[in-house]
């Protein structure tokens, strides 16, 4: 939970255009979740699903860094080793979260 606390001020300070962009992205993700995600029911290897991960990543790390994280998450889907619980982390490392 310390993680959340540390990040909170950063998101509050975010500049206006960045906030708009992040909001727009999250809107788009939600739209996807309520429509096209229909065809991907049951396909996810990860928890949270990539779209939920992306939404959280954008909310916590901003539009740019969040998108970057989400892109990496998408790429991990389908690799043999990746699966399971892989939440958004505070760092921007691209290596997959290790969960046995």
């Amino acid at each position, binding site marked *: 939970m310390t993680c959340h606390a540390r990040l909170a001020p950063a998101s509050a300070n975010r500049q206006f255009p960045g906030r708009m962009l992040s909001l727009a992205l999250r809107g788009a993700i939600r739209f996807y979740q309520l429509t096209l995600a229909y065809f991907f029911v049951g*396909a996810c290897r990860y*928890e949270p699903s990539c779209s939920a991960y992306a939404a959280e990543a954008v909310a916590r790390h901003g539009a740019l860094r969040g998108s970057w994280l989400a892109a990496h998450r998408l*790429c991990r889907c*389908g690799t043999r080793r990746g699966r399971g619980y892989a939440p958004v982390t505070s760092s921007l490392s*691209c290596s*997959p979260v290790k969960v046995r």
Partner: protein
Amino acid sequence: MDQKNFIVAIVLSVVIIMGWQTLFPAKTPPPQQQTTQATSPNGTPSAPASAPGAPAATPAAAPQKVMTLDEALAAQGPRVTFNTDQLLGSIALKGARIDDVRLAKQRETIDPNSPPVPVLSPVGTEHPYYAEFGWSASDPNVKLPGPDTLWTAGNPSVVPGKPVRLTWDNGQGLIFALDVALDEFFMFDVRQSVENKSDKPVTVFPWSLIVRYGEPKAEGIYILHEGPYGVFNGSLKEFSYSDFKDNKQQKISTTGGWVGITDKYWMATLVPDQQSKVDVSIKSTGSGADLKYQIDYVAPGKEIAPGATAATDARLFAGAKIVKLIDAYEKKYGIEKFDLTIDWGWFWFFTKPLFWLLEWLYGQLGNFGVAILVLTVLVKAVFFPLANKSYAAMSKMKALQPEMEKLKERYGEDRQRMNQELMQLYRREKVNPAAGCLPIVVQIPVFFALYKVLYTTIEMRHQPFFGWIKDLSAPDPATILTGFGFIHWQVPEILHFFNIGVWPLIMGVTMYLQQKLNPAPADPVQARVFQFLPILFTFMMAPFSAGLVIYWAWSNTLSIAQQYSIMRRHGTPIGSKAATKAKPVAAVPAPANGGSTSKKGGKAKKG
């Protein structure tokens, strides 16, 4: 592994973005190709700029009576006729104009007795559309054949293998001749020659043109290009009619290629000699009722010495864009990128092979609908093992749903902890990871390509399936508001949305059934919205071609069968009531291991 996937993702994104742009192109005007126009070769003085325009706008645009085809044909005097297996029509001797070309094998409606589809039509009919071949000269004193010139025909008709020669003597010692040949299909071969019997040399510039009156009613859908287009210096350029609004024009010099005007299934296209550099122009003239579109090209000038004859070859394709035929012409005449006359889209590398496969299956099975069904089975077979894995995972997940609910109740506040417990549960119950989204993603191109093929290719036009489906490329006609085809009335435009055919309804039912087999999504809003999606998709798919809807319904049915059998094998209860039945399994969620897992969770945060 990550890197590789990342590259794949980038490539996929680019493909998707490009696909998007094809589907919904930005409405920017194409760059003006104002290349130098007809700079006279060999320093010939003042070469004519281009082919003459379409006949001048009729003054005051008096409301003209639209004539029937027969009236219009009779009004223009003598004609040379042709009547092959594929084409019927005639060439007007006045102006040597190819203005009557109809497709014997293609009818206006699915009724085989309906009139043949016209590709070119004479002036006087509702939509005049014709091709002409002529000459310009640098010397204004040279008398040239014009739109009112009455040519003399060698024979009264053209048959494949027996061309007709049209001649005209200009009275100044120049004999103009057009040798028009027609093959078994849609290609007119036109040899434009001039014999100089005078005592001084003369320079002429042979041209070819196509004129189309008014803006045709296009499908108006971004998925398919209709309008003027061509291959210039090796690259395809597609224009929309609106690019030539307010009499704008395009001038392009090219060596090789072709230029034409296309509709969805037919086109009139000029093919210049592939070795010489020609000056193409595309423009519109007039406005309102007098609006005309013209494409033309001027071939290099020919200086003809006294006593000599000079000839230039031109070709006109006026007919249906049959894939095999287009490819055969490309090979036979060496026409650069003639295959691009058919709009395969950005995904041509996928759309075209899919078409070949479908056509081959059609050849084996004799019905395009059955070919689509078999194609679906083939696609499913390729992804069978992957899908099996996915369904197995889903089946287990569905069985575990009550346990997950319990976990949620217990650890709902602490997401971290809940997820740890969830992973424990997966491990204990040996839930293999799902195959991921790849098996689903790969089916998207198949769906899209099939849509494109059904929509674009003439081979699908008027192709029947079983029962009431007489045209796979059109929406299912047995719709609700027509009493499933038993009541014949014109359904008003505003009700079209509700006018759903039988096949879209079947598709909706298959979607609903499939949803019943899937585990409900964890997000309650998502779960509720998804319940309505089969209904929404039924409405959305209703206006699509029946072939595509049948494909989707059949694909769903196969998936359901596969999924159902796997669930039966796993003993997973089917249907929503199953949740209560499965309860006893959800005995101990084993919170004892909680400590060790949350430690791992902490590590995960840093990683």
